[in-house]
């Protein structure tokens, strides 16, 4: 029996059994060509890997999508067997990082600068979520107070769109549209922050 819940990152993560054990089982199922295992794997890691690529490429969304695609296709063709979540994620992030390094070398013709970035990237941490969280946090603090309150009601107090609409004396549809615009704004702001630190 598989039990999933949305974790704090919003991914589907197993509960009831240890994550490492889940990864071990998933890995074994992937080895024998179990399609449902690949779907589970994709659901669990695609979004996380995409965010990793966003940080890696410093907000280059198109390149991030390319890297995600390359990585997932590589995984589909075959991946080693893993006994822990940590080893699986280390391998996945390395695949994406190597894809990015290859891209840099292709684009920059093996320049000294590209090689330096490649060397730096190889020693970087696999954890890009922290950097992304910090960018989100600083962006949130720059928002007008009305938008902050809306986000707080939905994501912190976990109120429904209908309840928020009642409190704001508006319709749920209007709340939803406003949220959508707000998320796009946040996304753009985060991308801009990441791009500000980009070398290329």
């Amino acid at each position, binding site marked *: 029996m598989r039990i999933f819940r949305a974790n704090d990152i919003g991914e589907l993560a197993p509960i009831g059994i240890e994550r490492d054990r889940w990864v071990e089982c998933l890995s074994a199922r992937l080895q024998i060509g179990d399609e449902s295992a690949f779907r589970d794997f994709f659901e669990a890691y695609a979004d996380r890997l995409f965010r990793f690529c966003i940080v890696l490429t410093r907000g280059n969304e198109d390149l991030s999508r390319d890297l995600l695609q390359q990585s997932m296709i590589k995984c589909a063709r075959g991946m080693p067997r893993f006994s822990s979540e940590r080893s699986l994620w280390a391998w996945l992030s390395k695949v994406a990082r190597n894809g990015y390094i290859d891209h840099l070398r292709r684009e920059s013709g093996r320049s000294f600068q590209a090689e330096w970035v490649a060397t730096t990237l190889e020693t970087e941490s696999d954890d890009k979520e922290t950097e992304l969280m910090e960018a989100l946090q600083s962006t949130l603090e720059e928002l007008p107070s009305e938008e902050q309150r809306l*986000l707080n009601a939905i994501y912190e107090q976990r109120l429904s769109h209908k309840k928020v609409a009642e409190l704001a004396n508006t319709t749920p549809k209007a709340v939803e549209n406003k949220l959508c615009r707000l998320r796009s704004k946040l996304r753009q702001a985060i991308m801009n922050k990441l791009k500000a630190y980009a070398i290329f």
Partner: protein
Amino acid sequence: MRFSKPGKLLNDVFREGDYQKFREDLAASALAEFRQAHPKQRQQFAKWFLPLAAMVVFALFLKWSLKPDPQPLAQTEPFSPALPKEDKVAMVQTAPLRVEQWVQPAGTVSEVVTKPLPDGLVVESFSKNLVIVSTPPGLRVPSLNDSELLAMFPSQPIFLAEVAPGRKVFWLLEQSREGDSQ
């Protein structure tokens, strides 16, 4: 403003726009690649698993079909009519068979009986010049008693003595002859 769990917001932020469509397309193409990359493994799985399953089923069938029918328990007359049928504990009582119920073995065993020979047939031999005459029992043989024996030698010194029960020694001294008689 600081969220205690900003993960959900972060995830929603990066799922905005056409990302969802891209994600679905990618999932489909990756799954197709996965199918293409793993047919061999699936075939291998089928190659081993299906014959193995068939063998197990066949073995179970064989075991079931070759299993001997359970022998019906011999119905025996209860020895005690007072034994209640509802008893769940089987009670066995034994009773000695009557003589007519004894089972005699088939005549394959031959009984060997030895009987002692009659006294007249026992022959003892000695390293002497004796003539042993065997006579059938019941045949009357002319014999002498002690007095008649002694009367046969009136002019010669003779001696007759019983040396053992039923055994007498007769001595004829003049001719130095010696003989045994019973």
